[in-house]
């Protein structure tokens, strides 16, 4: 049997052409996407494991000799598919700005301080139940030049592989109650307001570390799947 990954509902993902986010105008394809029935290359995918992780990759506050500035936070959650099945043993990659809203990147030159003790990159594997956990600092908001006085709400970039090429997802995690949502064309590019809220983490007091760190829970849902028959001459199963 071949798994078949269901498409997400139409309003879950942003339209590629979202003119409020100016960079989409010259980059979004103008031809309609061509439908591709899923075959072997689409229902398989890279299963990248332990070999890609360093000891402190999940703890962004311990990657240097000193501690970064900012509010320490735990960010954790479950990765599941659209049928609620845990996605286990799957690589989760994150990156973010520091507490002042500055990225450690040559192209980020706005006048907020860099932090010598913060790179802003993390990696983790999901466990058998799909759980992942990072320790980091609360990222700051930052200005960009998309429109007059534009500011990105604080966010953490998440990259997920799932178990198949078809499940690949890159998203951003936002923080509850951010006053900058109203003017952010990237957050608001998601048409369905309920889907948009699925990018907002939940403050999770039960998971805080007393006298150490606050906590947020961010669950991620990748595409669900069904099975269809597969005919093949040298099928050895």
């Amino acid at each position, binding site marked *: 049997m*071949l798994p078949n990954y269901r*498409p997400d*509902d139409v309003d*879950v993902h*942003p*339209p*590629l052409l*979202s003119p409020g986010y100016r960079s*989409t105008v*010259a*980059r*979004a*394809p*103008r*031809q309609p*996407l061509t*439908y*591709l029935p899923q*075959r*072997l*290359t*689409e229902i*398989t*995918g*890279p*299963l990248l494991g332990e070999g890609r992780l360093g000891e402190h990759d999940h703890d962004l506050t311990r990657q240097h000799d000193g501690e970064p500035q900012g509010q320490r936070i735990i960010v954790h959650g479950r990765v599941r*598919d*659209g*049928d*609620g099945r845990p996605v286990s043993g799957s690589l989760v*990659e994150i*990156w973010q700005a520091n507490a002042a809203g500055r990225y450690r*990147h040559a*192209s980020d030159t706005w006048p907020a301080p860099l932090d010598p003790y913060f*790179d802003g*990159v993390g990696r983790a594997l999901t466990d058998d139940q799909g759980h992942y956990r990072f320790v980091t600092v609360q990222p700051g908001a930052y200005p960009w030049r998309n429109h007059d006085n534009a500011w990105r709400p604080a966010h953490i*970039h998440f*990259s997920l592989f799932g178990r*198949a*090429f078809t499940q*690949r*997802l*890159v*998203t*951003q995690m936002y923080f509850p109650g951010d006053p900058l949502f109203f003017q952010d064309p990237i957050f608001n*590019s*998601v048409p369905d307001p*309920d*889907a*948009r809220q*699925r990018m907002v983490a939940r403050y999770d007091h039960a998971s805080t570390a007393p006298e150490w760190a606050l906590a947020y829970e961010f669950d991620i*849902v990748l*595409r*669900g799947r069904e099975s*269809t028959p*597969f005919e*093949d001459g*040298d099928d*050895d*199963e």
Partner: protein
Amino acid sequence: MSERLGGTPAQTVGPYLHIGLRWPDGPYVVPEGTPGAFWIRGRIFDGTGAAVVDAMVESWQADPDGRFDHPDDPRGARPPAVPGFRGFGRSETDGQGWYRLLTVKPGPLPDPDGGTEAPHLSLSVLGRGLLHRLVTRLYFADEPAANAVDPVLRGVDADRRETLLASPAPDGFRFDIRLQGDRETVFFAV
């Protein structure tokens, strides 16, 4: 069947994707020195013809025997025929919009409908200004017989098929990606 959950929306990787996604060994689908390995190189262009310098290409492919080391391959998972073969590659674009992948040619694949898929790589394109990844396929121009019967290529308008063909180059193959406009690359909904 359990309760359906709503999917998490996609968002752009943004201009600072390199922080989280750059791997020193990213472009190496196979280790350097692998017999028969070649480079796939190409540039990414936007609708104005400008090079896209803040994008990333990811690739996924079968091994030279047309097998995947993956439990969902119905023929069974099998360790790769080439030592160190990862099947997966990723390369950010440089200041001129170039990406590069070192790999070997995948084998043909049996198609669920009884045909045969020509050797190909599946590609994801991520970048600033792309709110969702783009998916395309890279086929090899020096496989005309296999390409002629490939079910995916045959489903693409004849006058756009050449956008999916990598052409022979001095150290491998050349495959440019045009996000928009004249000779726009065919992108797929999977």
